[in-house]
């Protein structure tokens, strides 16, 4: 296990999200009452306040809403990766998710570019959902 990597807690509102990611699934909460997809995980719907939800499998597609290229100073776990990108992806289901874009030069990143999810294993305990460019017609 990578000792230096910032790690989600094993329990709490986000535990299921990370469990699904480890299995290669991007799932977000979907309100059982009003149907709103929400991310990040929270115990109630911010639209109708219902506590009931299921974990909906996302198509994994979306587009880059905004991005930055990070240079030092960065967290120690990322020091070897600079300059690296951080993107906010607007998922086709509606929610926004902070992630990274892979298989893409930093200079090629544009707001609005279509992307699709992929899963990158940090170590045996943690897999993070990241994104890669997707052909516009896909």
């Amino acid at each position: 296990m990578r000792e230096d990597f910032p790690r989600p807690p094993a329990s709490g509102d986000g535990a299921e999200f990370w469990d699904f990611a480890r299995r290669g699934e991007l799932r977000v909460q979907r309100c059982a009452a009003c149907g709103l997809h929400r991310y990040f995980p929270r115990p109630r719907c911010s639209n109708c306040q219902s506590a009931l939800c299921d974990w909906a499998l996302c198509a994994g597609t979306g587009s880059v809403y905004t991005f930055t290229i990070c240079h030092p100073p960065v967290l120690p776990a990322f020091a070897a990766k600079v300059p690296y990108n951080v993107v906010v992806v607007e998922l086709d289901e509606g929610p926004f998710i902070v992630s990274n874009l892979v298989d893409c030069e930093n200079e090629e990143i544009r707001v609005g570019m279509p992307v699709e999810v992929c899963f990158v294993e940090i170590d045996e305990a943690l897999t993070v959902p990241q994104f890669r460019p997707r052909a516009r017609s896909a």
Partner: protein
Amino acid sequence: MLPETPPQRRATIVGIGQTEFEKRIERSELALACDAIVHACEDCGIPVTEIDGITRYDVEQNTEWDVIYTLGIPHLNFFAGTPSGGGGVAGTIILAALAVESGQANTVVVYRSRKRGRLSGYGSGANEGGRPWAKVGTMLKGSQQYHLPFGLASPAQEMALIARRHMHVYGTRAEQFGMQAVVQRAHAASNPDAIMREAITLEEWRGSRMIADPLRLFDCSLENDGAVALVVTTAERARGLRQRPVHVLAGAQGEHPIHTQLPVYFTETGDFGGHETGGWSIGRRLFGSAGIGPGDVDVAMIFDHFTMAVPLTLEQYGFCGVGEGGAFIESGATQWPGGQLPVNTHGGSNGEAFIHGFNHLPEAVRQLRGTAVNQVDRCEVAFVNGSITDCAGAVLLGRSAT
């Protein structure tokens, strides 16, 4: 501030105090806090022992009991904190003014002491000096788990995401953030209290290294040590003191589900799609309660942890049109002298110092007293805000009571 307050109880700022601002000061944060408080009391002539209220940021590490124990303040009638980060610039003054006007306290001291120089970390706690975000460790809590495993950790990186979206929607250019950096460094060059005493050119801004694209080093606030304090009391107590009182005309705060939850920032309040973001409702309440408009403001001290916050704040509070903040800066409007709304005339957080935005308040007071280094002519009304994201707020200060 409160509509029914009799004139003699209305809140005024009578004393300002600050330490030196340096990259590294050897004294403790508590020592700096007490130095600033003592200076603020000396400035107005109110004895330290007369203080009966304290308001502070809740991230302030020097508590009210630290302060009263150290300074021998015999009794506090009122104490309160304001949550989160830079929003405390306005929130602490609003709390102090409410305490004074409601009669909960008569003389409230408000302070911020901070050691953020690179060598000044003195504890492992996030707010115990140094960079809070760099001390997060590997056991994440709450919403951190949706950012940090992707390398999104520092405020510069978060603000870069907001800046990039603003550029995309409105055509704002990174150079326009740079122009504000240049303006503020020019202001700092004539301010003997400023850490950065050399003006910069846009070319030098362009040559400063990238921190979080589109934000460069010269867009960032300084990492330094220092403390600032103010004394707030009633108009009646203010009479006959050493300094002309500055009146708290209005204050408004707002909290929105944003900032530490960046995805929500965009969905709920900040998508820049032309609809109102968080600051709009604060601005409307602020100017509405003062009975004046943005056009009546003579000088603005804008929370500028990063220069991109300046155009966004100008838009949110109605000093220019939506999406026009970059062009407003490019027109020269924010510079002193000559600009229609000089912004951060002390040099701001990239020029004078970054005391969590709190050094903007004494500069607004100096402008209204008529004693600023870069003095705005006939300065009657000053705007001061804290934060553009979480727990934001702003106050309007006046040379006259109305």
